[in-house]
C-alpha cells in the first residue's frame, strides 16, 4: 500500500481576526492539526486601535478541502471574517522581496540591468554587492530571483503575499 497524493489548487484567503495573544498560533496550528497546507502567511494589525489584524494565507488543496479550511477558520472564536480571494473574483496580490546579490564585473552589471528591467530598487550597495527591493506578484518575484541566481544570488527574504479585492468594496 502506498500513500496517495491529491490534486490541489491554490487559494488566497484573507482573515480578519482579533489581535490578541495566541490567535496566530490557533490558526497556524489548526492548519497543521488538520493536515492543511500553508504556502505563505502574512499578518499585521490594521486597525487604528490595534485591535484587529488581517491575515493573508496562501493555501493549496482540492475544492472540498478549501471549503473545509474556510469553515474551520470561521469556527475559531477570534476569527471574524474569512474571504477566499481566489473564489471571490478579480483581486490583486502583492509581495515584497529583498534580494542580496554579490559579484563583480559583468555579473554585477547584468544584475543591475535586470533589476532595472524588473523595476527592483537598490536599497543597499557595497563594492561587491547589492540588495534589491522588488514588489510584485509571486510569479514576477520567482522569475527575478531565478535570474539573480545566475548573477551571484546570496540570499532572499520574502514577505509572503497580501491581497485585496479589486473595485470599491471591502473584501
Amino acid at each position: 500500500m502506498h500513500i496517495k497524493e491529491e490534486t490541489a489548487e491554490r487559494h488566497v484567503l484573507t482573515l480578519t481576526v482579533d489581535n490578541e495573544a495566541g490567535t496566530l498560533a490557533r490558526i497556524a496550528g489548526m492548519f497543521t492539526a488538520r493536515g492543511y497546507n500553508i504556502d505563505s502567511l502574512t499578518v499585521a494589525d490594521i486597525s487604528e486601535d490595534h485591535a484587529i489584524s488581517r491575515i493573508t494565507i496562501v493555501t493549496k488543496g482540492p475544492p472540498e478541502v478549501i471549503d473545509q479550511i474556510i469553515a474551520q477558520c470561521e469556527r475559531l472564536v477570534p476569527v471574524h471574517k474569512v474571504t477566499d480571494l481566489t473564489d471571490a473574483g478579480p483581486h490583486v496580490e502583492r509581495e515584497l522581496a529583498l534580494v542580496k546579490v554579490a559579484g563583480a564585473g559583468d555579473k554585477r552589471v547584468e544584475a543591475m540591468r535586470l533589476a532595472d528591467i524588473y523595476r527592483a530598487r537598490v536599497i543597499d550597495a557595497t563594492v561587491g554587492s547589492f540588495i534589491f527591493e522588488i514588489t510584485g506578484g509571486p510569479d514576477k518575484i520567482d522569475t527575478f530571483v531565478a535570474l539573480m541566481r545566475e548573477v551571484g544570488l546570496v540570499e532572499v527574504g520574502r514577505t509572503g503575499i497580501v491581497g485585496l479585492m479589486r473595485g470599491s468594496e471591502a473584501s
Partner: protein
Amino acid sequence: MRNRKLAEKSGADILIEALIAQGVDTVFGYPGGAVLPIYDALFQHPKIRHVLVRHEAGAAHAAEGYARSTGKPGVVLVTSGPGATNAVTGIADAFMDSIPMVCITGQVATNLIGSDAFQEADTIGITRHCTKHNYLVKDPAELGAVVAEAFHIATQGRPGPVVIDIPKNVQVATAEFDHHGNNAAKRYVPAGDADFAAITQAVELLAKAKAPILYTGGGIVNSGPDASAALRELAALSGAPVTSTLMGLGSFPASDPAWLGMLGMHGTYEANMAMNQCDVMLCLGARFDDRVTGRLDAFSPNSIKVHIDIDRSSINKTVRVDLPIVADVGKAIRQMITIWNSRKLQAQQLDEWWARIKGWRSVGSLNYPASQSEIMPQYAIERLYQLTKDKAPVITTEVGQHQMWAAQHFHFESPNKWLTSGGLGTMGYGLPAAIGAQMGNPDALVIDIAGEASIQMNIQEMGTASQYRLPVKVFILNNEWMGMVRQWQQLTYESRYSNSYSDSLPDFVALAEAYGWKGIRCDDPSKLDDAIAEMLAYDGPVMFDCRVSKEANCFPMIPSGAAHTEMILHSDEVSGTMDDEAKALV
C-alpha cells in the same frame, strides 16, 4: 476617573463570584500549588459544592457526565502542569462529543511563565486544538468578562470545552469587580434559525420522498429537550423511519415503531440498509462520522441528502450533501413542522418502503447464540434493561464491546440518559461520568456499563463515590479480554492476540469491599436476575462482576473500509484476514 469606587477583590474571589453568577453550583476538581488561592476562596463560598476526585481525568469526565445528564455546563478546577495535562483527555473527549465544559486550570505566576518553573506546562498551547476556545488571564480585572464569555462559548452554538488558565499571582492580585456590569462582548454568535427558503425546500423534499430516513445525532440532545420532542412530531408527520448515531441515542424513543436502532459499524441491519437505499436522507445534528458512513464512495449512493447542523464545518466535511442548512437543529425541526402544517402537506404512501424495512428487520441482526451454561454479554444487557427500564436509569459506558452491546440492547425513551464517549472513544470515561451524572441527578439510578479492562483506567474514582455517598452501580461485563481489540485481532489479524488478554485482574468483589462498596459476582445465567435485583436493592455504590462468555463477538459489524451493504452478521462470515487498505482505515 470613575465616580464610584468598587470594592477591590482578589482574582480568586472574582472567579468564584463570576462562577456563581453563571449559576454554577458544582465543581469537579483537585487542589494543587497553583490553585491554592482559588481553593481558599472556595472554602469561604459554601454556595459551590466541590467534588474532590482522585485523578484530574476523573474530574473532566465527571464534569462531562454532569453536563450530558443535566444539560448544564460541567465545571472543572485543576492545578497547573500535571493537573492540567491529566485533564486533557477529558477536555479532548468533550471537544469531540460537543459537551459544554469550562475547565479552570492554575498556572505558575506570570513572571515565571516560560522559565520551566515547578509544575509549569503550556496549558494554553496543549489545549488549543482540543478546546473551543481558551484563555490565559493575565489581569484579575479581565476575569469577570472572561468567565462570562467562556460560559457563553461553551454552551452556545455547538457546545464544547473552554479552558481558562489563571496564573497564581493573578488569583492573588486584586481588581474591581461588579458582576452586574459584566456583559461580555458577544463576539461569538452561533447559528439560530434556518434560512427559510432552504428549510422550505427540505420540507418539500421530505414530503415528496418515497423512501425517506431521519438520520439523527448528538446535536438533537445538545439542542435541548424540545429538539427531541420536535423530532418525534416530525417523524410522525412524515412517517419516516428514524435512526441515530451512538451520541444521539434517546432523542427518539426506542419503543416507537419508526425506530430502526443505531446505525453504523455496529448498528442494525435495517438502519444501515435503509440508509443505503433511501431516496431522501435528512441528517439532523449528526456529522457523517467514519464509524457511521463506512466506505464513503458506497455511502447511500442514490439519496438526496439534507444536512442540518449548527456547525458549518460539519457540513460537506466527508460526505457532500445536496442541501446544507446551518442552524440550531431543534429550531430547524420546529420550522419544518410549522411549514409542513401550514401547507397541509401529506406524506407519500410509504407502505412499500416500510415493507422493505420489515424485510431487513426480519434478519434479526441483533440476535446472538443463546447459552444455558454461561452468561452471554448481550443477555446480561437485556436483563439489566428489563429489570431497570421502569426507573429510566442514566447509563454511562466505558469503551469497547460492552459499549456497543449496551448501545444495541439497552433502549432509551428520552435524551440525556445515555452518556458515552463517542468521538474520542475514551476508556475510563464511564465511572467518573456516572459520578458526575449522580451528582447532577441525586435521585436517579445511574449505572456504568463497563468492561473489566476499561474500568481499570479510572478505577481510583471509586473513592470519590464512597466519599460523596453516591450510589452508582458499576456493571462489569467481565470476559477477561479487551474484547474489541481481541475481536479485531480475530477478524483481521488471524487471531494473533497481541497483548489483549486482561491478565492479573483484581478480585472486583474484594476491591469493592475495600472501598466500602458492595461487591456482587455472578457467572450463572439462571441467577443473573436475582443478582441484578440485589444490586438495585442496595442503596449505596455497587460493583457487579458479571462473568460473561469470553469469546463472544459484537455483531452485526461493518468491517472497516466496507459499505453498509456488506455487513457481517455472524462470525462464520469472517475470513480472518484483511488487506492493507482496510487495515489502515481502522
